[in-house]
């Protein structure tokens, strides 16, 4: 696009963001402040992820953008278009074909490889924010690895409800040191972060923080020995592809309680559906 640099941001800003990314990779799970810029998309709509993606994209990259696991949700469309327009790069909806995947709220079902990078959009990077409002305070708590407050919250959940009530944005310990928000992915996706082969980058635009999980890093959801972390998933199989291992969206079919459960990862579901058709054709 004329009048703007490759991938919108000027090179100096990209350099500043890359420095923050390098620092973040060096200290897994630690939130690194960066001079976040105003983007032409609103705060809260993925400006952190967009800045990280803009800073790491090269002309040969293939970009996939998902929101809620789907490539076709309006905001995913809008962000994909933004990069197609400002960087002129190739985009894809296939997880396996992408070199960079920007996501909001999901990790693809297809395992990611070492030559891929996943960029998470993060609304609230501070995992302790709901327990302690002051960022000056939480910064100190991270420095001292003082996470008792979060353990108490989990314990109170168990005491009150019999189990932990956090179903998304489930707090994790990264590399045994930093408590981290995995962004609002469902708890179902949290285990995928553990020792993932791909580099995981997190961008929070409004809060101006970047953090990272280098490949093959330990990521453990907080839990207790007698109350281990457990996944939350609708018990059904996908109504379109029959998957029993994928995270499902619940679709309201009518006003008489009719529900259809379908894969939230549209690429995964479409892939399974076409595989089924091939099998049917072969049979």
């Amino acid at each position, binding site marked *: 696009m004329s009048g*703007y640099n490759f991938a919108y941001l*000027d090179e100096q800003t990209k350099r500043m963001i890359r420095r923050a990314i390098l620092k973040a990779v060096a200290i897994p799970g630690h939130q690194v*402040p*960066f*001079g*976040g*810029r*105003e983007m032409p998309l*609103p*705060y*809260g*709509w993925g*400006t952190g992820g967009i800045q990280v993606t803009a800073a790491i994209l090269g002309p040969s990259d293939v970009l996939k953008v998902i*929101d*809620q696991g*789907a490539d*076709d*949700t*309006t*905001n*995913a*469309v*809008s962000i994909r*278009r933004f990069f197609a327009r400002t960087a002129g790069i190739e985009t894809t909806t296939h997880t396996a074909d992408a070199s960079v995947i920007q996501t*909001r*709220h*999901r990790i693809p079902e297809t395992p990611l490889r070492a030559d891929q990078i996943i960029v998470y959009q993060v*609304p609230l990077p501070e995992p302790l924010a709901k327990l302690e*409002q*002051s*960022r*000056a305070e939480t910064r100190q708590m991270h420095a001292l690895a003082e996470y008792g407050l979060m353990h108490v919250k989990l314990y109170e959940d168990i005491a009150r*409800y*019999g*189990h932990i*009530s956090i*179903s*998304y944005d489930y707090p994790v310990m990264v590399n045994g040191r930093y408590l981290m928000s995995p962004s*609002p992915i*469902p708890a179902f996706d949290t285990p995928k972060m553990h020792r993932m082969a791909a580099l995981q980058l997190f961008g929070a635009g*409004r809060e*101006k*923080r970047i953090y990272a999980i280098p490949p093959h890093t330990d990521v453990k959801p907080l839990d207790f020995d007698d109350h281990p972390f457990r996944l*939350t*998933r*609708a018990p059904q199989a996908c*109504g*379109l592809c029959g998957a029993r291992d994928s*995270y*499902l*969206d*619940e*679709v309201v*079919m*009518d006003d008489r309680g009719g529900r*259809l459960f*379908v894969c*939230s990862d*549209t690429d995964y*579901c479409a892939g399974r559906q076409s595989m089924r058709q091939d099998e049917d054709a072969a049979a």
Partner: protein
Amino acid sequence: MAYVAVKGGERAIDAAHDWLARARRGDRSLPEIGTAQIASQLGRAVDRVMAEGSCYDPDLAALAIKQAQGDLIEAAFLLRAYRTTLPRFAHSEPVETDAMLLRRRISAIYKDLPGGQVLGPTYDYTHRLLDFALAAESLEVTPLPLAAASSEDTPRVTALLDQEGLIEPSGVSTEAEPGDLTRDALAFPAERDVRLQSLARGDEGFLLALGYSTQRGYGNNHPFVGEIRVGEVAVELVPPELGFPITIGTITLTECEMVNQFSGSKTEPPQFTRGYGLCFGHSERRAMGMALVDRAMRAEELGENATAPAQDIEFVLSHCDNIEATGFVEHLKLPHYVDFQSELETIRRMRATATAATAATVATETEA
């Protein structure tokens, strides 16, 4: 109803933008509004957009207002997003508001003072009666004879108080480059330079409400308007190849200096303290709100009890930016199917547990 995966996001977006453009244009039998008209006749709106958009350019602000259909926060966002793409190659010398070409200058603490009281173009004493004559087009305004402008600097009221030592000295000026939160992430504790920058582009409504809250007792600091001045100042820059300042243009500013009570501390005798407001364009409401909140945020520094929202630096600075605020509030419109689904599963499980527990209790009670 059969379920089809929701496709067509791209087409929907294009259609939405097309519809928006038509809505913006409005009734085609009426002439289209021009940006020059907006810049010239909706000056207060332009000023607000320049202040919150953090970019002094009345023409671009007018364009943003037109593009945003008069939604001033959306317009400020457009201007901010443009501003952020501009290179930052230098910073100006501090502007000299003593040398301001005054349009308006009032003090609420002295009846008369050097430089005088200049009422200027103010709504203050208008009777708020709808002027139906304005609804008629082509209303002629007879030009007023102009008085000669004074070329003398007008001393500030706070300087007069300072001569008697009754007010704290103004902040120490240092050679250090002031902080810039458009380049660096906001960090706490935030110094006054960054606080003032943040307030100067903060949401006018937020500043107004917080300033108001201090008057109603949430962090009262007994303010007096020492002085408000509105007018034009020269912006000077020292190009490295010249080594002396040159004027690159003039901008309109509103400045408010509040004089506040202070009972003194162990190290300081009783004296007046300052709250400072400065913003682009003509907006006394913004400058006053800013000055009240600036003073409130100095509570800790002055050894006062910081208990009210306006005194909580982190609270004020984290929430005064309306571009950030509107983005995050409005992002709730984005799909949250995935998190909501996990909440559905959790609440179903919790309800099942609760129902089973109640049933068990009832059963036990019935047996007993």
